[in-house]
């Protein structure tokens, strides 16, 4: 198995407790991600996308099944699987440089400088995170993850809270950085265009308990254009398939009730 390869075998997860007893979150998931592949995971909110990332990161253990990364079974968190969180999760008590260097033993100044340059924040080394914009914070979070030199980079809706223009700029920077670093990337999003623009392959999850409903190769070379016809067609296809949301809406008793009221 190659460095950066991710393998999920029969991965199942249920929450324990509550009145219902067991609440199934992930249902018998099987997934193979090649080394250096960029995979986007799409799905309705609350379907378990983040949970899936947490399992790969090792923050949680599956109820059954196993996860193998770079040939080793995942038993807990480690620097070879670095995560970028939705709300950056930077430490407010450290400066930008301190945050980036957090995982580096002996706080290697040269390496921190390199990473600051990579994400374009050279001048902000000694600034505290709360003084940065949301987009800049996500760049610092990315740099902190990259400092660990991970085999796999896990990104949990990192650009969801950022305005459209900055989001597109960040997406392009991520692609540029990916070229430079060459790690596998698993990127969770609920934005179809983002998924298609960034990924080599997009995976669509269903409502909870999550199953893979669709795997879509995005066989287009980089750099891509957002207005590209082929890209647009793939997006359309995914929109049609993610219509699972509308299908479900038809089955939703509450919604049907409201519809009847309207009629």
């Amino acid at each position, binding site marked *: 198995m190659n460095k950066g390869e991710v393998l999920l075998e029969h991965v199942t997860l249920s929450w324990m407790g509550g009145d219902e007893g067991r609440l199934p979150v992930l249902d018998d998931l099987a997934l193979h991600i090649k080394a250096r592949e960029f995979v986007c995971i799409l799905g309705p909110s609350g379907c378990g996308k983040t949970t899936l990332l947490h399992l790969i990161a090792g923050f949680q253990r599956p109820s059954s099944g196993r996860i193998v990364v770079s040939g080793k079974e995942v038993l807990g968190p480690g620097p070879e699987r670095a995560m970028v969180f939705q709300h950056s999760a930077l430490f*407010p008590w450290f400066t930008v440089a301190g945050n980036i260097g957090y995982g580096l033993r002996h706080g290697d100044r040269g390496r921190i400088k390199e990473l600051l340059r990579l994400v374009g924040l050279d001048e902000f080394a000694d600034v*505290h995170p709360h003084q940065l914009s949301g987009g800049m914070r996500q760049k610092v979070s990315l740099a902190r993850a990259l400092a660990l030199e991970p085999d796999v980079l896990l990104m949990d809706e990192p650009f969801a809270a950022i305005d459209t223009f900055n989001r597109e700029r960040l997406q392009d920077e991520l692609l540029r950085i990916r070229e430079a670093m060459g790690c596998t990337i698993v990127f969770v999003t609920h934005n179809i265009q983002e998924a298609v623009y960034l990924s080599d392959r997009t995976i669509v999850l269903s409502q909870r308990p999550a199953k893979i409903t669709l795997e879509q190769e995005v066989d287009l070379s980089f750099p891509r254009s957002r207005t590209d016809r082929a890209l647009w067609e793939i997006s359309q296809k995914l929109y049609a398939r993610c219509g699972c949301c509308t299908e479900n809406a038809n089955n939703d008793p509450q919604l049907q009730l409201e519809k009847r009221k309207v009629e």
Partner: protein
Amino acid sequence: MLNRCHLIKIYKILSPVFVVVIAWKCLSWLLLLLKGVIFPAPEDVAREFVGYLQGSPIFGHSLAGQTLATIKRWLLGYLLGTLTGLVVGLLCAISEWLAMAFYPVILMLQMVPGLAWIPVAILVVGIGPETSIFMIALATLPPVTIGLMEGIRGVPPEYLYVSRMCGDTAFRRFFMTQLPSALPSVMTGMRLALANSWRVVVAAEMVVGTGVGLGYVILQSRWDMNYEAAFVCIGVIVFLGIVTERWGFGHLEKYTVKRWGMLNE
């Protein structure tokens, strides 16, 4: 030149003082009018205060001496209580088992009014300056421990994920992630402890015959009918409390949690 900004600042400091003086003056008039009680007016107390500043003694010591005695007692008790509180909090934060055993005890201690410790303090350390220090420490400890514990319990899970992902040892995680994240809560605890300890220091001095200190003066002035002295001491206590709370903690916060954007101004 004074600009608008300066005027607002001056107003902010002087207007509450003005309100207190006016209300006080009215009260003393009213009491004299309705009940025939001679209630010390602000100017009487001010005159008395100036006299003390010039060196006339109150109950055997200068005003500075009485104040220093109280500050010393309070500082010792507060430091002792804070340190113990932090140690207990650390132990509870490190071990879930210790927390289960000790945290409820701390919550119980929190509920005991400071003055209720008087019999206990007298039995444990006898009557003397140590009595009030012991009581102050007991009043300081619970809020500090609770602040630390709640702070550690409230660390966002993402911070812990980051720490684990970076391969931290439990030791490094505690000091680099959990403790700084708990700092705002620890400081709130220390502030509450400060208010608690001030209340207790004066009360303890009143009850446990110490012979010196602001609380002692307030109590003694009752027998001497020297109410001006009592009012001066109350003023000094308020002033010291505000200085330690606003200025001391204000600075501590400015260089830590405020600088890090962990508090909303």
